[in-house]
């Protein structure tokens, strides 16, 4: 494996909660992602996907391992990365507009400019008219879209997305997938995308990383050689379904031996 734009090598992380058995979330985990590549990670629930994104984000220190982005060692959070959190992480006391403005605010951008930049992304995720609502006044899918807009507005080089479309209905999900692909191509971003939906992983990615059950390691990596731009019709082609089946089979082994459910 050549040195990637995002490079993680031999990452180990064991949680040791007080008064509880230690849990090894990541074991000798390796990832290499090229610049402007779109890579998805799939794996059984609890295998360490979120943990890995948190490590890469610089929020959690691994016990050992090397991580770098664009040749720079990851030592803490940085402006080159932004995360869409699985559990949203919106500030309950801030309106949609002010939640989305968090990144720019911390970058010292004046309020008026923050609003203008935010407006564009509020429109994009379909939340116009809800600028002044508080998170508790939004549905789960709407909260998730606030989280997506919040990550996009700070214009990071690397987008870390933890099941960002999980709470969306099928139609909104389709729209958001297309938007994400558009932004990824136009703004030249590198995306690391965690999902439980195999179809979504195939549709969006250049490569799909399949993780083992906990402790999470890389089980296999699958190249998705489908041409871009990808349209909706591509999802019913035999090649597409062939790729889906291959991922499904790999995952099934992991989940069978764990006794959990399988979704496609």
């Amino acid at each position, binding site marked *: 494996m050549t040195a990637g734009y995002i490079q993680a090598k031999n990452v180990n992380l064991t949680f040791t909660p007080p008064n509880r058995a230690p849990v090894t979330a990541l074991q000798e985990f390796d990832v290499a992602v090229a610049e402007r590549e779109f890579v998805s990670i799939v794996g059984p629930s609890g295998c360490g996907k979120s943990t890995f994104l948190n490590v890469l984000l610089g929020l959690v220190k691994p016990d050992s391992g090397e991580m770098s982005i664009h040749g720079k060692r990851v030592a803490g959070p940085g402006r080159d990365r932004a995360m869409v959190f699985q559990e949203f992480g919106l500030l309950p006391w801030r309106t949609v507009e002010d939640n989305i403005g968090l990144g720019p605010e911390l970058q010292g951008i004046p309020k008026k400019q923050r609003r203008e930049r935010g407006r564009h992304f509020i429109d994009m995720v379909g939340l116009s008219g809800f600028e002044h609502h508080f998170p*508790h006044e939004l549905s789960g899918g709407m909260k998730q879209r606030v989280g997506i807009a919040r990550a996009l507005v*700070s214009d990071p080089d690397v987008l870390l997305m933890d099941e960002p479309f999980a709470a969306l209905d099928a139609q909104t999900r389709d729209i958001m997938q297309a938007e994400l692909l558009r932004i990824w191509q136009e703004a030249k971003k590198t995306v690391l995308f965690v999902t439980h939906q195999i179809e979504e992983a195939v549709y969006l990615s250049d490569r799909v990383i399949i993780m083992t059950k906990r402790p999470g390691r890389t089980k296999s990596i699958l190249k998705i050689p489908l041409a871009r731009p990808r349209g909706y019709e591509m999802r019913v082609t035999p090649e597409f379904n062939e790729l889906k089946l291959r991922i499904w089979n790999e995952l099934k082994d992991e989940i069978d031996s764990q006794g959990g459910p399988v979704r496609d």
Partner: protein
Amino acid sequence: MDKFFEDWRRPILGSLAIICFFLAWEAILTWGIPLNKFIISKPSLIFAGLFQDMNSGLLWRDLLISGRPLVFGYVAAVLVGIPLGVVMGWRVRVGYSLDPLLTAFYASPLVAVAPLVIIYFGVGVAGKATLIFILCVFPFIFNSFAGVRSVDLLLINAVRSFGGREWDLYRIVIVPTILPFVVAGARFAIGRGLIAVLVGEFFAASEGVGYRIAFYSDMYVLDRMFGYILVIMVIAVAFTEGIRWAERTAFPWRVGM
């Protein structure tokens, strides 16, 4: 009409109960039990006495005298209690060390040490303010403590991930989280503060609301004594409701308050 009642249901029903209470009190002592002025009074006499104390200016002067130490003691409780509670919540070791000790103090009948406090700090503003501080500081400590403990780590992580520093964490996450807790503590502390004023003045004073109540009681002028008690009740309710109102307008994100 229905809509009107719907909107004002709480104040209407609340006031109605209060009015009924006074009417029943008046009625019982007018037609029921014969009034013995040495052990009880009735609303008509109480209000008449209260107006006399208002007109003579005595009530206002007493309120001013008692108000000063209340403000000093209360403000000191805020300034000491909140930071102490926050540090206890944020620094685990400080919390573990101080929690049992402070809980024991909080649970003990602190008014019992009032005479000592007056001996140490004198009968003036200093003694009273100290007593008030001692009683008021605990709700601030424990509520900020609980507030910090309830901070959502996911929010801390989110703000850190977008480049937030220590100061940003306080500004954006910690302060908004503990604010409702602190306000609830403030509401509770008001009641304790008023008790502290009265107790402080019962023991040693020549002016003030507490002194006046003790004085009227000793003199068997019960209608005047009840008048003063009524004033304190009104003040307590006004503060409590005021803080409640501020809570509702200041924290619109809190559902169902």
